[in-house]
């Protein structure tokens, strides 16, 4: 069971979370706080693993609460999902490693995705209490998630959700299961940031996530294509095929 606390100064906002979270059987709401002091006390008493945190509340804001909690070193701080109407705190939230950042009003799906992410986080914490030195090093070198704004929403996108990346002039288009997002970035720069064990450059303008790679085949027209698990085809060039060959051999 994931013990959860909801912190929001508005009754209806808390109610929305409470009702929607009944759809998550492994979540148990152990308390609700309507302001900073209440929330801080609640977290100290109930030691939740997950905290839904509004940012603007009377008295202390969400970040103040986290600061107050982190003063006590023995206290383990819960995983945080921010829920707020303001998008200006996104970078700060990302920097303190929040699980997600939900802009109000959010949909049930968006909430579900955030909870799903929190589960992964908690699973990770339980499985590998201390990362080995290699892992720590690779974690430092390669990014594991990206924060950006897309169509008026804030996304803390885990790179593992990205299926393929396509270059469009000065931009790259990231494709996930249901959506695509445009990011002002060059292919070269994003390739540097991503773990080559996971993301493979298959073409001057394409990279694919090996997790979602189904096969490489030659079309009737003689063109090489990479087929992803969802059936999407991505062109592949000969030069990059040779490199992949080396990679598989090695």
């Amino acid at each position, binding site marked *: 069971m994931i013990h959860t606390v909801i912190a929001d100064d508005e009754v209806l906002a808390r109610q929305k979370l409470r009702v929607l979270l009944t759809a998550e059987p492994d979540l148990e709401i152990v308390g609700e706080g309507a302001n900073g002091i209440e929330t801080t006390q609640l977290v100290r008493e109930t030691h939740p693993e997950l905290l839904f945190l509004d940012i603007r509340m009377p008295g202390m804001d969400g970040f103040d609460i986290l600061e107050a909690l982190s003063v006590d070193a023995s206290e383990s701080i819960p995983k945080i999902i921010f829920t707020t109407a303001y998008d200006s705190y996104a970078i700060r939230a990302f920097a303190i490693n929040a699980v997600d950042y939900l802009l109000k009003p959010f949909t049930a*799906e968006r909430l579900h995705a955030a909870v799903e992410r929190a589960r992964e986080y908690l699973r990770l914490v339980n499985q590998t209490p201390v990362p080995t030195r290699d892992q720590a090093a690779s974690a430092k070198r390669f990014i594991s998630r990206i924060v950006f704004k897309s169509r008026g929403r804030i996304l803390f996108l885990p790179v593992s959700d990205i299926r393929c990346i396509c270059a469009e002039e000065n931009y790259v288009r990231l494709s996930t299961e249901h959506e695509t997002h*445009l990011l002002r970035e060059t292919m070269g720069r994003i390739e540097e940031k991503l773990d080559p064990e996971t993301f493979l450059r298959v073409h001057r303008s394409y990279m694919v996530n090996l997790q979602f790679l189904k096969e490489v085949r030659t079309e009737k027209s003689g063109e090489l294509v990479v087929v992803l698990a969802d059936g999407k085809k991505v062109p592949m060039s000969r030069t990059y095929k040779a490199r992949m060959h080396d990679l598989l051999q090695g």
Partner: protein
Amino acid sequence: MTLKERFKARSRPLIMHPAIFVGSFLLVSLLFATQQWVAAEVWYPRMKVRLLVVASGWAVQYLVWAVCCWTLWFWIGPSLQKANWSYLLMRMLPLSVVLSVGVEMVLAAAFPQFPLGAKPMTFLERLDFGLTDEFLGNMTIFWSVILALRALGYYEESREKERALSQLAVELTQAQMQALRMQINPHFLFNTMNSISSLMQTDVRAADSMLEQLSSMLRITLERGSKQLIRMGEEFEFIELYLALQERRYAGRVHQSVSIEPQLYDALVPAMLLQPLVENAYVHGLSRINTGGILEIEARRDRQRLLVTVRNNGTGLRNGSEPRNGRMGGVGLTNIKNRLQLHFKSDQSLEIREVAPNMVQVEVSIPLVFSDVRETTLVGYGAS
């Protein structure tokens, strides 16, 4: 412009009114004459120089200059005010030499008694004497006037720019108000709310996501603040949200297609350019047919121009309430027209026509300019 109108236009600012202009020239000539007469009285009292003679010489010289300069102003005033270096060198420099010599010729012809105190000279000798003495002075008079006019041009130009900028701000505020109104007027907000309300009974998830999209649009609109020109990518992101909402409302009645050349993501367009065009396509065209609607939005490059087109196969120009060619109706279109005019002067066009039976196309053409500001929207990377 009739001569009378032109005369009126050239009489402003006040100093350029012919009476005041010529008057101030004569005043200056009188000053010089007095100075010369006083100097003569003090240094050469025996010469008995008469003030009237000296003054008439100066006055004629300045009068001729005043008339020449004002005529020039009357004739080619605006080009003088916009003159660049090559115009000044290629046209004004030769003219200044010709006029300087010409004025001396007039003086030599008009005053056979000059130079005072010397023995009588022939016309050519007087001209030679006058040129040696006065050529630089004449040039100075001419160029002072020309440069002053040019400076006046600069001043007016910058004032004009300032005025255009403030007007632009007002227009943009209107566009923003309009974008907000689109969410607050019966055409959009109430209908969208009604759809959400209806969906709440049948499909909570759909209602949920529609509400989220509506909020995102509002958020983007507010966030843009008073930015005049935005990147095409941002404009399309906004329009995609709008299209998603319309898609839900028109549930399969309209097939939407959006295409933008990737190289144009960073091209600059006036903020809120597309939404009124797309809204028009729905209101005046697509909302009037029951099925098989087509909406195509396209941004493409044509050499150094950026072309944005919105096409719909609603009811055509004749049947719909779409404004006729040449006559722009509707607050939305007028606002776009005005803003295009303010941003790009005459280097832009907005054209509405029927490209095929019932297929109405609005095409906006503006100069292609890319944003040189490195991405300022939020993007960050992190390892956890």
